[in-house]
């Protein structure tokens, strides 16, 4: 059964994925707009706190330059989706990242390679703040990420992450795995809108001049139905709809990882982060997972991929970063980086893995 899907002509599957992305575009735009609203709101409430802390510092007699934050931000290029500036991360005394600066443009497929323990996973995990940087900034879609602020949850919705060990929710069936986040976040957003609508209605009772429009919001039934339909469509596309009602423990590694990928896609992310998505797989299953990632790449998704699959990197990457000792040692298109490596450590690394 699964063999058949894996052997499905690549072109056909690619179409299928482009379709996902096409049909997703509209929803994604809507989702992005909605997220933007929510983030704005979250940041407004956060801004007050920030103001307070600024004042506190002023009380201490320290000078706080007004445009401090903006000075740190690099030039805002419309094409840039993620911008990493002087990122440092230490675990205790162990300094893992020692100043990483780079940008990920929309539609780029950045592959990260490097020896074990060089900080590849740490860098990737800093991108969505699963790991809190010691210093440095990450600007995602024009907004600096702050792990302590509630807006981080909204940003994370737009950053899909795929883990080496799949991390499917063991207590939920496949379809529930995919639906959980869209339903939970959808209902949370709906409740916010409902509250807003309620207070607006109340205000309109007393204030006849209030012209603000009462927001409409979906019902729970609609949210669930939409999530279900989308989940089934995604499963169909990776050829696993017959596994919808199975628990993850009954699936093969390759199936789990493909489901983990569509689980992330169900949130209509703007970027996908992969941390060695095929390292925990039996060799015969690596192909089916890489195939899914490739088609996603062809569909135009922005991606950051940590991998040891050099052949795959050559094929999909638009840019390869070689990380060693916590810094980017080389940053070049794959043909150049693999064809004519400059860095001595990179040469040594490539001679080992190729």
């Amino acid at each position: 059964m699964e063999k058949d899907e894996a052997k499905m002509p690549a072109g056909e599957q690619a179409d299928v994925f482009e379709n996902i992305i096409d049909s997703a575009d509209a929803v994604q735009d809507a989702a992005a707009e909605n997220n933007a609203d929510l983030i704005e709101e979250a940041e407004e409430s956060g801004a007050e706190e920030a103001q307070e802390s600024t004042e506190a510092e002023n009380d201490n007699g320290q000078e706080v330059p007004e445009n401090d934050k903006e000075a740190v931000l690099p030039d805002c290029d419309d094409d840039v989706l993620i911008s990493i500036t002087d990122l440092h991360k230490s675990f205790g005394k162990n300094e893992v990242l020692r100043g990483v600066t780079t940008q990920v443009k929309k539609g780029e497929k950045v592959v990260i390679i490097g020896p074990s323990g060089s900080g590849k996973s740490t860098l990737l995990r800093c991108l969505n703040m699963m790991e809190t940087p010691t210093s440095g900034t990450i600007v995602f879609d024009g907004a600096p990420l702050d792990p302590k602020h509630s807006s981080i949850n909204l940003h994370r919705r737009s950053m899909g992450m795929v883990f080496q060990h799949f991390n499917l929710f063991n207590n939920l069936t496949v379809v529930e795995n995919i639906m959980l986040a869209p339903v939970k976040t959808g209902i949370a957003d709906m409740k916010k809108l409902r509250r807003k609508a309620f207070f607006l209605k109340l205000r309109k009772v007393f204030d006849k001049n209030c012209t603000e429009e009462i927001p409409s919001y979906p019902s729970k039934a609609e949210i669930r139905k939409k999530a279900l339909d989308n989940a089934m469509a995604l499963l169909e596309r990776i050829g696993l709809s017959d596994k919808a009602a199975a628990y993850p423990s009954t699936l093969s590694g390759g199936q789990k990882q493909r489901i983990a990928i569509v689980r992330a896609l169900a949130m209509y992310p703007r970027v996908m982060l992969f941390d060695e998505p095929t390292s925990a797989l039996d060799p015969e299953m690596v192909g089916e997972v890489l195939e899914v990632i490739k088609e996603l790449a062809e569909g135009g998704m922005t991606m950051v991929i940590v991998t040891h699959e050099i052949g795959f990197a050559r094929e999909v990457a638009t840019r390869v970063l070689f990380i060693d000792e916590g810094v980017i040692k080389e940053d070049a298109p794959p043909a150049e980086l693999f064809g004519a490596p400059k860095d001595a450590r990179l040469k040594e690394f490539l001679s080992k893995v190729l």
Partner: protein
Amino acid sequence: MEGPSAFEKFFSDIGRVFSEYNDFLLTGLQNTLIISVGAAVLGLVLGVIVAIIKIAAVNNKKLRIPEVICNIYVGVIRGTPVALQLFIMAFVILAIRNFPIVITAILTFGINSGAYVAENLRAGIQSVDPGQTEAGRSLGLSGSTTMASVVLPQAVKNVIPAIGNELIALIKETSIVSMISIIDLTNAAKLIGSGNNMATYLVPMLVAALFYLAIVYILTFFLRLIEKKLRESEQHISDKKIAKVKAKTERKLARINSAYEKAVSKRKEAA
């Protein structure tokens, strides 16, 4: 033929205990059950709250003070005998005139059992793969949603056996309430037998033992049932199980569809 007659006497004694003292026994049984169930519910609620506070405090500095309180609570309760806790509650803290003494017992055993449940549950939560939390958070779910929808269900599955043991121990521990003059099963048996000679003392005790056994058996039966249900998602499940899960999931999905259709038709009607 002395044997059979001794046997006969024994069984007729049991019959006598049941018929003559059934009021007494039933009161005892009732009190044992009330105290056990009340304490179990209180213990589970307290245990869940304390365990979650302790886990959440790991990455949240604001919870430092609640965490310290929880640590003291668990430490003191686990470090002192429950009999002493019962005395202190009955004769010091809740020594209020006309305060129902059964409630005192429920509170004591509930607070006591909460500490043990909390420790079991905390260990259970920590035994859940951190990757599960990471996956939830990476999708944009909040910490509490991830905890409620992903981590706790898995933790509960892991700790059901330990919590079951705790509940069984609790039921038997309630037998010390005779020290504050509550008539529970054990105390009833003692009172029925008192004044008679040693041999007749035995019969009510055995009857009480049978009651305890029955309660624990029934509880064990239900715990097994829950455990089996929760293990649905585990590896190596049979084809029959897979079909069952499939049917159940399909029913769930069908409910989502029908709820949606209902909502749509309602909206049409309104329009």
